[in-house]
């Protein structure tokens, strides 16, 4: 197990290096001179030169990359072009709202997704199954931004129960986390159902039934427990996708998180912030994937020795 862990940890180093190169190259991929773009069309040559210096765009490419990587390692991503504050401060302030939003969305989505999936699998071919799967396929197809607007319309504008957006009390969390979690709940429901149905065909489940184990035990102990292994993997992967989904949901609910910061900085062409965010998001996804793989290897020895 330790050997596997070390191997995987070493394996992510080249990936992170590759991503850092891509993120670094990002500024050079922009059409035109990034410094000119940032400084504005009618900026003087001295201003453009100053901006170029502040973006770390002087000297040969390898030197620029080294400069960028060393700074990134110490958490220095430069200054936001929009607010003129350090990028790391901007990101630091927005980190926790996004983390909490994702965590709450994940919790409810997992609980409901599992319940619907198990119910559908147990009542296979009956109305509970059809109902559950209709909800699931709809949930996958539902545009989260429209769901958000519908909820705001009903609960904020008409009923006045919940705030339309912003961040603060628990009431602010209700609609955004519901909106964000719906797609995940739907994926979880479908996935749990098929995993459950597959395990229910196994011989040991039939044996348990044949020797007279009560149906409740057959479902919860023999089937669900084993069906959970692939479901756990799925949950980990969904976590990464929730972070992506938060980009849209945060925009709908004016949530002061990383997702909205990214959208704002793309619109504003705030390149230092974009670079830092893409790097941060990427490393986050890689770590989440790594965690999922390790958990999976822990549950399934076959993978470890491959």
């Amino acid at each position, binding site marked *: 197990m330790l050997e596997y862990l070390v191997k995987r940890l070493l394996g992510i180093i080249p990936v992170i290096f590759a991503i850092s190169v891509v993120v670094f190259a990002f500024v050079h991929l922009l059409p035109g001179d990034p410094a000119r773009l940032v400084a504005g069309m009618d900026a003087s040559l001295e201003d453009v030169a100053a901006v170029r210096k502040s973006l770390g765009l002087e000297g040969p490419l390898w030197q620029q990359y080294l400069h960028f990587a060393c700074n990134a390692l110490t958490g220095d991503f430069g200054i936001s072009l929009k607010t003129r504050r350090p990028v790391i401060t901007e990101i630091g302030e927005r980190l926790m709202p996004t983390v909490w939003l994702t965590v709450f969305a994940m919790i409810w989505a997992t609980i409901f997704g599992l319940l619907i999936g198990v119910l559908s699998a147990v009542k296979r071919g009956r109305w509970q199954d059809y109902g559950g799967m209709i909800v699931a396929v709809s949930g996958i197809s539902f545009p989260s931004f429209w769901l958000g*607007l519908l909820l705001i319309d009903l609960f904020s504008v008409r009923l006045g129960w919940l705030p339309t957006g912003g961040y603060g009390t628990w009431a602010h969390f209700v609609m955004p986390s519901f909106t964000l979690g719906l797609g995940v709940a739907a994926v979880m429901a479908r996935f749990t159902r098929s995993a459950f149905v597959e395990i229910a065909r196994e011989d040991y489940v039939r044996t348990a039934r044949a020797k007279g184990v009560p149906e409740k035990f057959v479902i919860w102990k023999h089937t669900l427990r084993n069906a959970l292994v692939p479901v756990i993997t799925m949950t980990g992967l969904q976590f990464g*996708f929730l972070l992506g989904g938060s980009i849209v949901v945060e925009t709908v609910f004016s949530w002061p998180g990383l997702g909205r910061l990214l959208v704002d900085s*793309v619109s504003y062409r705030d390149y230092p912030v974009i670079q830092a965010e893409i790097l941060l998001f990427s490393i986050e996804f890689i770590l989440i994937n790594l965690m999922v793989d390790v958990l999976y290897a822990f549950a399934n020895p076959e993978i470890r020795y491959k």
Partner: protein
Amino acid sequence: MSTATSAPAIVVASDMRTPLGEFWRRFRRQKVALVAGAFLLALLLVAIFAPWIAPYDPATPDYMAILQGPTAAHWAGTDAYGRDVFSRILFGARISLAVGFLSVSLGGLVGVSLGVISGYYGGLIDSLIMRVCDVLLAFPGILLAIGVIAILGPGIDNVIYAVAVFSVPIFARLARGSTLSLKRAVYVDAARAIGVKDRVIMMRHLLPGALPNVIVYFSMRIGTSILTAASLSFIGLGAQPPSPEWGAMLADGRSYIGVADNVTLFPGIAIFVTVLAFNLLGDGLRDALDPKLRMA
């Protein structure tokens, strides 16, 4: 049902019917997918003939009739500029379907080519391509798309490239899988023995084997791509305002929530129903193609 899991594969192998006929016979039984397919066909016709069907011009404002609810004259009401929402949705279907088809075609083309090359040559090329795919797959599509938009700039044309990028790794994996299994087939060995060029082997002998799965994923990815493109337009990075793109219409209408809900309601329904139809069609195609994967 439990006996049906392994049986069909044997039936197909020994059956004299053509694979296509067999596929169609199974697909016909998927009623939901058939309805979804029919709906999408109708939507395609609507998109093509939008200029003739739409009762109003999608861009002409009418300041005498702003933010009206649904009436006999305006079936889906009017927006803040008095433009007919129904007509705009019809024109929006052109954009959404075009973005969906083009982006997935582009992503599929690149992905399948990479996958076949990767599977056929193996070795360093294979590990290099697959590593890149792994990294791309680890990202949520919308983040990749925003990264591409950040470079190319906002706009619906760039959304096509942005959304295409995240279809590439999936198609690459699919094509690689089927290539790996077909590569060992006797007819491929025979082709190589008589000196057929690598390029021809890949095009004529390996690519067709990947196609069935590619078609299924094609329809599933279009739904996801349309949804992602609409999301990008909604957050302001895709189609820009006067465009009747569905996501952009929702973004336009969000200021009038509680005042004129029709402005957001109808484009929302349009996105939902279209994406749902593509997903249901994809599910049906998948079940018809490979009964082992069936969820029921």
